[in-house]
């Protein structure tokens, strides 16, 4: 459609035009998305191949100084006058080799088995006494093994860069140019290569405290690290996909598999209710507050928004206390004469507790929707509503035929991030019910436990570290798929706003 044709449509037709285009494009986008992943992998290996080819050809073409630099990092730079830079490379090499020999190799060696010597009572050859001798600590072997691998990868990258740099400086000298001196290279770090300076510190901390632990936990899922194999007393080792097959095994009773199925069901029910109810009621309230002719808009808005402003742990702990048998809500109901004995909201039956957490979550989440959607609701073209009113549509009809489709279209990404947030909604469940009411029917879980709170209990209470890590990976796979689809949808819609 040409732009001029588009301009002649009325707002409603424009909306449908955009909406149907997005939907029609969806299968194609999905195909492109998988194609993109394939391309990414292919490009990755192509890139590595190219790098290796360059590495070899630079060695062949380079002079003697370059060739020595392949063994002694920074040699080429030092010989050609870049003394400080060469020294830095050399220093790094020495430091890494020292680390590797005196620390890393010992752990890396044991990495395939995660240790063979168990801690126990043995004759100590030094004293001749029967003593408790320290064995291998599988946990530390895994942790430092991963650390050594990560450091080795980083070192290889630096090594690669150093050979490249040696070759570059040799080329410069051969062409009769003066090699770049150290001061101007440092100056470059604040101008042309400023991104290196800026990103160095965040990359370092993220690698150490996000990526390294993440790799560690992913690997834990493939070991038998649990309460029967607790380091340092006992050894644990690689078991492949055993933990995952335990989760997917369909056995009766309070098994891990049955608990996983039950909690997955509840997590999804919870996430759907928490997302949809908050979204719908939040939007209706926002519409009411912003309706023409309603006065004191700021007052109404603040009344609701204030609950978002109060820190969540305060409101949740407060709610937990108010819902106790002798808490404020039972006191209120009794003084109104509705009940004569306190209701156990949080720890009687599964159904009561589940309904309670969903209702309390509405109290927490609806103001949030009001806050976010107010602005977008005001952007719906007023003539849509006017023409609907002229055609005889009431407020309910307008809501379902205009507001809801429009908002769904505009806020789909928000809804999906919200859904993912609810799947991972640790605080509400943990602080409100702590997973309760507890039961014998589930393995280490209560009826309101989500997968993420179960994960937490598995690590903190029952030390099923491998199981917890496996559950974490499964949650990640679900969330990542949803996010990627959303991300792609957003991108597609954005590019489609430009009419060709």
């Amino acid at each position, binding site marked *: 459609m040409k732009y001029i044709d588009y301009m002649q449509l009325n707002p409603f037709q424009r909306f449908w035009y955009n909406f149907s285009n997005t939907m029609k494009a969806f299968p194609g986008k999905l195909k492109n998305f998988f194609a993109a992943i394939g391309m990414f992998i292919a490009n990755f290996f192509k890139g590595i191949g190219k790098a290796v080819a360059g590495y070899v050809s630079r060695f062949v073409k380079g002079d003697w100084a370059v060739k020595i630099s392949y063994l002694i990092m920074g040699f080429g730079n030092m010989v050609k006058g870049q003394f400080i830079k060469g020294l830095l490379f050399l220093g790094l090499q020495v430091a890494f080799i020292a680390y590797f020999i005196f620390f890393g190799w010992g752990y890396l060696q044991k990495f395939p088995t995660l240790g063979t010597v168990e801690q126990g009572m043995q004759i100590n050859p030094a004293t001749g006494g029967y003593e408790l001798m320290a064995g291998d600590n599988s946990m*530390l072997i895994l*942790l430092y093994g991963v650390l050594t691998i990560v450091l080795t990868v980083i070192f290889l990258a630096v090594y690669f860069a150093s050979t490249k740099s040696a070759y570059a400086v040799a080329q410069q000298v051969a062409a009769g140019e003066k090699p770049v001196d150290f001061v101007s290279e440092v100056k470059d770090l*604040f101008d042309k290569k*400023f*991104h290196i300076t*800026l*990103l160095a*510190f*965040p990359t370092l901390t*993220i690698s150490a*405290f*996000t990526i390294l*632990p*993440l790799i*560690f936990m992913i690997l*834990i899922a493939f070991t038998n690290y649990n309460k029967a194999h607790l380091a340092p007393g006992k050894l644990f080792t690689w078991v492949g996909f055993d933990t995952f097959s335990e989760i997917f095994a369909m056995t009766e009773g309070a098994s891990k598999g049955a608990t996983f199925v039950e909690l997955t069901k509840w997590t999804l029910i919870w996430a759907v209710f928490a997302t949809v109810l908050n979204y719908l009621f939040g939007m209706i*309230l926002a519409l*009411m507050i912003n*309706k023409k002719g*309603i006065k004191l808009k700021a007052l*109404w808005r*603040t*009344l*609701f*928004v*204030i*609950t*978002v*402003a109060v*820190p969540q*742990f*305060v409101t949740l*702990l407060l*709610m*937990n*206390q*108010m819902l106790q048998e*002798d*808490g404020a809500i039972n*006191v209120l109901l009794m003084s109104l004469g509705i009940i004569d004995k306190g209701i156990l909201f949080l720890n009687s039956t599964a159904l009561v507790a589940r309904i309670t957490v969903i209702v309390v979550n509405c*109290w927490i989440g609806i*103001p949030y929707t009001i*806050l976010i959607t107010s602005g977008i609701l005001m952007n719906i073209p007023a003539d849509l509503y006017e023409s609907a009113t002229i055609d005889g549509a009431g407020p309910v009809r307008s809501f379902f035929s205009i507001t809801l489709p429009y908002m769904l279209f505009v806020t*789909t*990404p*928000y809804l999906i*991030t919200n859904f*993912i947030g609810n799947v991972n909604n*640790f*605080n509400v469940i*943990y*602080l409100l019910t702590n997973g309760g009411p507890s039961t014998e029917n589930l393995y280490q879980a209560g009826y309101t436990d989500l997968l993420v709170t179960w994960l*937490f209990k598995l*690590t*903190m209470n029952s030390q099923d570290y491998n199981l917890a890590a496996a559950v974490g990976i499964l*949650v*990640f796979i679900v*969330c*990542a798929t949803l*996010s990627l689809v959303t991300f792609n949808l957003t991108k597609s819609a954005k590019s489609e706003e430009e009419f060709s």
Partner: protein
Amino acid sequence: MIKSYKLKRGLSNAFIYLLLAVLGIIWVSPLVYLVLHSFRDEGLATVSYLLPKTYSFKNYIELFTDTATLNFPRWFLNTFVVACFSCVISTLAVLMVSYSFSRLRFKARKPLINIGMILGMFPGFMTMIAIYYLLKAMGLTQTLLALVICYSAGAGLGYQISKGFFDTIPRALDEAATIDGATRNQIFWKIILPMSKPIVVYTVLTSFIGPWTDFILAKIIMGDARDNYTVAIGLQTMVSLEFKATYFKRFLAGSVIVAVPISALFLFMQRYYVEGVTAGGVKG
């Protein structure tokens, strides 16, 4: 005809006022309960009536003076110190990352953005156990330094909102400055940052608030080292079975003391907050 229309609108508005008033009361009453009962003088943990009979500042005074078992002032100071340090470090990290991704063009930019996105999808505390062991290996568990590290180490991943803001500053400014001989370092400090005061304020405030409201990480790291608790886990300890009978009213008072400044900061910056969320998660 017009009269009946007016009547209809009046009726529907009256209905809306009624509904808003009822819902408003439902929403605010727990907070009113919190504030009123934090001043309650009589009774132990809970009482069998809704409004307190006598009011005094006793709970607040005891909260700050009776520190033998549960030391609230200490927790408050801990949280304040941690919040200050992690606020400075996180703000710098966020601004550095978002400036690089927004204004600078380099080969690794796209891959880094993608990696950041994927890292954000893992459930946050999946890594906490590993972080705990890492900190233990460094001998840092149960210290405030560990908290500062945890709160600020991953901060760089939260760059989206300020990147969105930097993206709106015209690139022509950078180009003009480059022609005048400014380096990118100078452009960052002297042109972009002064123009981005709102987003700097927003980043400072959110990273300052973080440690006050985080719960789970602090609990894992601190364990039973009660003296190094932050207010969040401290307040939870007050309503645990062991302490609830004596400390419930002080818990209410402590909650008020924490909630008032945090809420004020949030209300002050809610506009940026909404902009940030809608910029990241809504098409527009």
